[in-house]
């Protein structure tokens, strides 16, 4: 095996202000400055959010940066620009583009809040609902029950957020890796997302000492400097799976199924199979590439063990994860994966993201992750193997509170994908596959469109988002009186569901 080594990259996790790459960022409100404005600069002096800016000392007012506006929440304040303008030149309304943005799961508020976090590294615009979507079930109906005075006073800086990936006591040979945050990045293949997006995901994984995943599409050279933070995926089409790439990483993931299209294969259209993609996938340019369902070599847990042994014979120290979907027997599948020797079971719920999937599959096939996590967690407990395996949940994890809720339901950690793309200003229009691909340059291989994403920008937006998530989860733990993320696992007693009356008053 000839492993090309490259210098390992080192990326700082420092937060830096990274505004939108668009000229007109989308906010919830629109501030209109009429021609009555006399340019006195009063609003710029007053507004603490930086909505109003003036060019120079006595210069003209520039167009309001209304995406920063806190809107009607601000109306009681003595700095409310609308009331304080001496000539009544300012007016405020809800941005018409805000209506119709987002959907039931990712509401317009949640999208804008994620952009806010990616820009600032924390939640600045507190007027937005960052955590609760409008789906009317699952995470959107679960709330944490924060005590007025937690039992233990925890120092924020002492909270242990690390996640141990190898918990098997019969497997001392495999890497004993702890990641600094209880989540890692989801698999997105070379060919489905642009190179800069892919590299930015790897850079943030390296900055925060966690992982990102190649998806099924090979291991491009741009990822070599981040080898220690890359998961290489072995999926049903075996595209781009080579001994060399298996050997160069510390973590290998089998994709048995994907939450967004459980039980369905993938299909890369011939047009998308450009020379670069074809080279990476070891295929002929311009042919349609089918990724079948399921692994045609796996009919049983014994077959699955054979797969694990195959990877272990190439890379004996590699962590092995099995990514499965959430059918009604997902608990049995998870136990089977454990006995076949994997370190991590990754359950991907049915509302997860994808580059393209039939709508009928996204909506209907397999159960939402909120039901699957407790089911698997408890089954593994009863089997007596819960502490020997890492349970990772994904598919519908949208924000920091969702991560904490998933862990409280019984997962050890999460995988996030869509929220990373939203940080890069994805608006979830769902047109990743149509025409030339993503019009916003995130999920495309089109030469012109992919230039819309700058590596520096993308990396920093993701670093900011991770920082924001990290601090929010630390904050949740402190408020609950917990000193580590591991203590939160399975603590459903710290939550309530707004449809059920337990001993807690519905807030």
């Amino acid at each position: 095996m000839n492993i090309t080594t490259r210098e390992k990259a080192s990326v700082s996790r420092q937060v830096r202000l990274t505004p939108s790459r668009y000229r007109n960022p989308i906010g919830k409100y629109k501030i209109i400055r009429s021609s009555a404005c006399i340019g006195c600069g009063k609003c710029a002096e007053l507004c603490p959010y930086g909505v109003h800016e003036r060019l120079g000392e006595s210069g003209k007012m520039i167009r309001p940066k209304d995406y920063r506006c806190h809107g009607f929440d601000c109306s009681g304040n003595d700095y409310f620009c609308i009331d304080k303008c001496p000539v009544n030149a300012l007016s405020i309304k809800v941005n018409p583009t805000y209506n119709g943005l987002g959907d039931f799961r990712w509401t317009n508020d949640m999208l804008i809040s994620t952009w806010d976090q990616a820009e600032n590294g924390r939640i600045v615009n507190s007027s937005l609902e960052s955590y609760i979507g409008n789906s009317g079930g699952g995470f959107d109906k679960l709330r944490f029950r924060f005590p007025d005075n937690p039992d233990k006073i925890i120092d924020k800086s002492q909270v242990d957020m690390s996640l141990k990936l190898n918990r098997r006591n019969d497997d001392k040979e495999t890497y004993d890796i702890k990641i600094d945050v209880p989540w890692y990045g989801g698999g997105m293949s070379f060919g489905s997302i642009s190179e800069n997006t892919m590299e930015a995901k790897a850079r943030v994984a390296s900055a925060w000492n966690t992982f990102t995943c190649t998806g099924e599409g090979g291991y491009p050279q741009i990822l070599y400097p981040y080898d220690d933070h890359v998961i290489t995926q072995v999926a049903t089409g075996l595209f781009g799976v080579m001994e060399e790439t298996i050997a160069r990483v510390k973590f290998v993931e089998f994709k048995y199924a994907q939450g967004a299209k459980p039980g369905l294969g993938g299909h890369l259209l011939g047009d998308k199979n450009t020379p670069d993609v074809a080279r990476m996938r070891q295929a002929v340019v311009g042919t349609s590439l089918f990724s079948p369902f399921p692994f045609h070599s796996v009919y049983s847990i014994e077959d699955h063990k054979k797969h694990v042994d195959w990877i272990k014979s190439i890379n004996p120290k590699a962590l092995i994860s099995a990514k499965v979907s959430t059918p009604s027997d997902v608990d049995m599948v998870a136990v089977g994966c454990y006995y076949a020797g994997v370190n991590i079971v990754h359950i991907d719920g049915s509302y997860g993201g994808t580059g393209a999937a039939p709508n009928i599959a996204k909506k209907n096939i397999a159960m939402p992750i909120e039901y699957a996590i407790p089911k698997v967690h408890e089954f593994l407990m009863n089997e007596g193997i819960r502490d020997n395996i890492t349970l990772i949940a994904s598919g519908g994890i949208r924000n920091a509170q969702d991560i904490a809720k998933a862990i409280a339901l019984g997962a050890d950690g999460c995988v996030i994908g869509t929220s990373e793309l939203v940080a890069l200003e994805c608006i979830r229009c769902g047109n990743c596959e149509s025409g030339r691909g993503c019009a916003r340059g995130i999920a495309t291989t089109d030469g012109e469109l992919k230039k819309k994403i700058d590596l520096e920008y993308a990396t920093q937006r993701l670093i900011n988002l991770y920082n924001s998530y990290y601090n929010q989860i630390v904050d949740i733990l402190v408020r609950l009186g917990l000193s580590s993320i591991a203590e939160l696992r399975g603590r459903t007693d710290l939550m309530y569901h707004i449809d059920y009356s337990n001993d807690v008053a519905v807030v």
Partner: protein
Amino acid sequence: MPEKYHIDIREAEPRFTPVGKYSIIDMYEQCARGCRNCVKRKCVYDIHKHHESFIRDMKGPVTFLNECMNCLSCVQDCTRGALTRVVNPEFRWLGSGTWSPDQIINIWKQASTGKIPVSGAGYGGPFSGKGFDSMWTDMSEIVRPTRDGIHGREYISTSVDVGAKLPNLMFDPSGGLMVDPPPMIELPVPFVIQQPEFGDVSIKTLTAMAIAARRLNTLLVISTEYIRDELLDYADVIAPRIKGVDIDSCSEFIKKARMVEVANVEDVSILIEKVKAINENVVVSIRHKLNLDSEDHIVEMVLKGAEVIHLIADLNGEIIDGGHIKDSFRRIHTRLVDENLRDRTTLMASGGIAMAEHMAKIIICGADVVSLGMPFMVGMECRMCMNCENGMECPVDMANIPAEYGATRITNLAAAWRNQLLEVLGAMGIREVRRLRGEFGRAMFMEDLERETFGRLFGGKEVAR
């Protein structure tokens, strides 16, 4: 294996500009004019270019009205911020009841292209909902139904049987059949077409449906008051729907028919006898409007030898006295299984089936076959505006639809729905739609998951919402 069933797809562009979901509003007074950086030129989907060409030639197609893909690139990049994206108000008026505007637009697209709806990003709808939205279908992690994919040479069958079945066969000592099996129709798709309950239905519309029924090798159910002699050419696929005395007006059709539908009148057995007297090989289906206590009545009907029972809910899938068709079917199917009668009869479902997934779900709940009217009307561009019901003009001139064109739209939609059914069956590892019938175990019901998970974890009673 026998020859594979295949539905031909042909592109059928809409006759009328479809209603789009999004549009861009241009605050022209804010435009800088002469700006060399105009975002309209950079639209990935060329919508603004189509707009301009329309202004130059107003006879051209108005396609830009429904093309905006909501990428917001122009809104966000315009130098002066002069553009705004809005949701088309006309879009919100589409549909009726549980038929949402998104469903209508999706049916149109499937009828135009014959392709199944595919998109990127995760599901963005509600967590669960009423009716069909409160169930999920299952999948199998390692079982695959066929060796070369769901569209391979080794195929998944979507054929169903319509008619009564004998509980057992009997043979004489020489091996000859001693019983006389009742007539049976095998349809290659688990649905028949029915003339919709409302709409500007003309002979052209019905001919379009009849051509489609013949191409699909399925049946078209038409009420007697709509039957005309012009349709005699298609009598082999037409199943007349009769109320009683009108039987004589369509005896020519009954002679050639494979199936006849009768109303569930007081003396239905006499009516069935009359039909069988005209054509003894015809399968008779009895229409029954579902209510909350249909079960006993249906058991009785099966015991009396009902060959097909067509159970009907309203357009939104609701039954008389409230409740959803899917719950009714689960109760009825279970009852018939308990009484050891299920295989003797065929249950047909109609009402509230607006998406391909609903077809799969009602089959899981116990239907053998579904009867679809409204989806195919929408496939022929109906907007469910109800103008026809109120004596106003149909915005898509349904009565004058060219029959051949209408048939293509219907077959395209049928192909897309069948392919989606194949996706669901493939994911479950099932190779035959007959085996999907009543397979509750291959579905997950929201009330069960909720009870087993959150109900158990978060205790006690559900709070009334």
